């Protein structure tokens, strides 16, 4: 059997912690819980992360980088702003369906327990790679004449708040249809709300 590398072991901890934190919450989950789920000793766990808070911070950076990388690929495509909106919505909903623990962690742990993340994650620092790509998307949309020029947070809140709300409803099992069924109508709603006005 091939030897598990340190990197693979670290990713294993991240996956296990994401699942536990998003299901049980940050405070209830203990380091022994995580170590047990990965199949390692508590002592060995500390070779990877020196505290639960540091692991929590690593997780939000991991999620932000994952989202940022996917958004960047969409931003680089030679497609219309309207098509980009469709791709972003589709990517976000796919992530919520396939890796619900990532969005759950973001909504239920990161946004709900800001005190855990402290000054190291002040403002947008820990979600910078994701927010930066959204800035690029909006800036280019306005520069191309496709989107209405307005305050960044007004547009950002409309876009991400809408998606976050839908994923929340999905997580609570309140949506009658799978998330994918809503992609087209939600993309159109977002585009209509943000598009350039004559």
């Amino acid at each position: 059997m091939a030897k598990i590398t340190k990197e693979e072991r670290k990713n294993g901890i991240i996956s296990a912690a994401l699942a536990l934190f998003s299901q049980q919450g940050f405070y209830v989950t203990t380091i022994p819980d995580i170590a047990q789920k990965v199949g390692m000793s508590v002592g060995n766990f500390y070779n990877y992360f020196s505290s639960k808070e540091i692991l929590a911070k690593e997780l939000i950076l991991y999620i932000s980088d994952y989202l940022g990388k996917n958004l960047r690929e969409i931003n680089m495509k030679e497609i219309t702003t309207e098509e980009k909106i469709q791709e972003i919505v589709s990517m976000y909903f796919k992530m919520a369906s396939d890796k619900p623990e990532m969005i759950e962690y973001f909504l239920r742990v990161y946004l709900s327990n800001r005190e855990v993340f402290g000054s190291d994650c002040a403002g947008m620092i820990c979600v910078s790679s994701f927010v930066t790509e959204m800035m690029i998307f909006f800036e280019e949309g306005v520069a191309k004449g496709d989107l209405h020029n307005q305050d960044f947070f007004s547009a950002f809140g409309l876009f991400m708040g809408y998606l976050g709300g839908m994923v929340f409803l999905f997580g609570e099992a309140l949506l009658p249809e799978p998330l994918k069924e809503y992609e087209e109508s939600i993309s159109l709603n977002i585009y209509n709300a943000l598009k350039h006005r004559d």
Partner: protein
Amino acid sequence: MHLNTETKPKLLWLQGVTCNGNSHSFLNLESLEQLLDKFELLYHPLLASTFSLSEITSLQNSCDILIFEGTYDPEFTRNNIPLKEILPYYALHAEHIIALGTCASFGGMFQSLAPERNSGLLYKVEEEGGPLIAYKKRVINLSGCPVHPEWLATTLQMLLAKHTIVVDDLQRPRELYSSLAHHGCTRNEYFEWKVDTKGFGLKEGCLFYEQGCRAPLTHASCNTILWNEVSSKTRVGTPCFGCTEPSFPRTNYFQTKTNMSIPQDVPLGVSKRAYLTVAGMAKTFHIKRLEGVLIDYKRDH
């Protein structure tokens, strides 16, 4: 014809379509008298010269260094002689030609008077399309609206000393135009921490985010070679207008063009992604010392 120290080089200052701004700026040169003493001034519109304008436009003389101020309009006349006759006559034998100011360099402010025929000596805005393009190697562009008198003085001194003047891709001396107006700005700490100024004329705060400052995108040594040896636009709380670049003149000088609150143009050579990442992080922190009037900081403690 070569510059030599035995006889003074002959300097001719011609004007195209101009507001006289560069002539006036030159009069503020601290060492004007000493510098002029090294040349024979054939003609200057404001200074005592060897010849009158009518003698110059009779096209009987020649010069070693030709300075041309203003936009080139071939039909524009001096003493009823069109520029299309005066300029080529003197340019043909001049050892060095200085396009003085943004108008002479790129067309500038007066380009729009007759955009189909007006231009700088070499460039029409950023494209080669001026009347002296065949003499490009002899032409030095000194852009600016107006040109800093020290930039012209430095260039003339370099020519006198027979120094090779290394130029950038817009034919401007690298010595003077390789740095940005941002370099040496006393507000750099505010730029680093993304602290906006609260108004014009204040000592504190950066003018880049809201007040339209173009210093991080403008090749000019305004903040390292100070105006009147003491000041610059940004030092008195006014944004840099980017007047040394071919894109000058623009509009809305006192406003930063933003798309969804994000600056449309970011510092030269920096990707928008990199800029937004760093700016976003810097904005997160609140530096108490940079938030108020500096002289009052901790005054009561």
